[in-house]
């Protein structure tokens, strides 16, 4: 049975060597680390900030710059990927705090949230005639619904269900217990189900 994990075990040793080389002053080693993680970190930051956010590239770049200067603090018992994912999440959180006029993620959605959700993605029954367009709308609907979740649930759902990390990896990234991760995941899914329930039949049929 082949299991696809986001972080293959064979990379661990290579990355440990690369980290050691960077600490010894080898910048090419850091280049390899950046290039092997940039796509994943870019995707994660884009999902945390929203794909239309103008500062995604700057934030991702800053993540790698911060990581470079904090490499002395990196303990080799953790994976570099886990460590840099944590830096990216914290940096994205900081970026979100700077924003004004954005709906706070920690705010629980009220009764009108579904209407707002529908209006914000502009669902139109006429679009159902166009499969490609509707598929995009379905994707945007799920993306927006995830974005509506309170931050602690949203990040857990993103890491577990969208990025494909295991519970154990999520608990290491977020530095919280396995039980907390499982609880946040279940509660996040419950809220997501509640949010998507009016569209669930349409979405599942796609």
């Amino acid at each position, binding site marked *: *049975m*082949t*299991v*696809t*994990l986001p972080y293959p075990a064979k990379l661990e040793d290579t990355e440990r060597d690369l980290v050691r080389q960077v600490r010894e002053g080898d*910048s090419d080693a850091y*280049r390899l680390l*950046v*290039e092997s993680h*940039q*796509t994943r970190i*870019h*995707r994660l930051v*884009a*999902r945390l900030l929203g*794909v239309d956010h103008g500062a*995604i*590239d700057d934030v*991702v*770049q*800053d993540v*790698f*710059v911060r990581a*470079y*200067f904090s490499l002395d603090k990196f303990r080799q018992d953790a994976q570099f990927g886990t460590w840099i994912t944590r830096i990216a999440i914290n940096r994205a959180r900081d970026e979100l705090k700077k924003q004004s006029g954005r709906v706070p993620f920690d705010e629980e959605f009220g009764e009108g949230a579904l209407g707002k959700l529908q209006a914000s993605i502009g669902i139109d029954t006429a679009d159902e005639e166009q499969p490609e367009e509707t*598929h*995009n709308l*379905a*994707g*945007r*609907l*799920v*993306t927006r619904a*995830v974005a509506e979740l309170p931050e602690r649930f949203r990040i857990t759902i993103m890491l577990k*269900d*969208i990025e*494909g990390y*295991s*519970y154990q990896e999520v608990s290491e990234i977020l530095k919280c217990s396995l039980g907390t991760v499982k609880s946040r995941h279940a509660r996040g*899914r419950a809220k997501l189900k509640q949010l*998507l329930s009016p569209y*669930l039949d349409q*979405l*599942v049929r*796609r």
Partner: protein
Amino acid sequence: MNCEAFKDWLAESRARTLEQSPAASAHVESCGSCRQTADEEQVWRHLFGLIPEHSRGPSLWSGVTLAIQERQHRKLSLSDALLLFSRRLAPAFVVLLMITGGWFLWSSPRIEAEGGSMIAMLETSSSGFMEEPDAILVAWAEAGRQ
């Protein structure tokens, strides 16, 4: 495989499907609750699969390396400035130390003199105090004789 083991197996990776594990398939055939869990998981995976893949970001290395160099240069500039400042500050610090030391040495005898007078005062007061017990003893002895 029991229900708990099945749920753990299912939750471990989104890449897992029932076809990959005969044990999981067999369990689902005999357990309605886990069948439902597996079906729900399929729905979730489908929903999350609808989220569009974010396009690959630009190569960041050139930006990252420039930012690192700039920050290193800034750090270096700061340490240079501190070095220059400390070099100019060193003579001033020596002069300040000499002035402070001189003042301390000059003022030390005055402290001693003041201390001496205080000792003299203590001696006076303590001798006055010591007279009192003698007077009490004398008075007590005289009273005894009487």
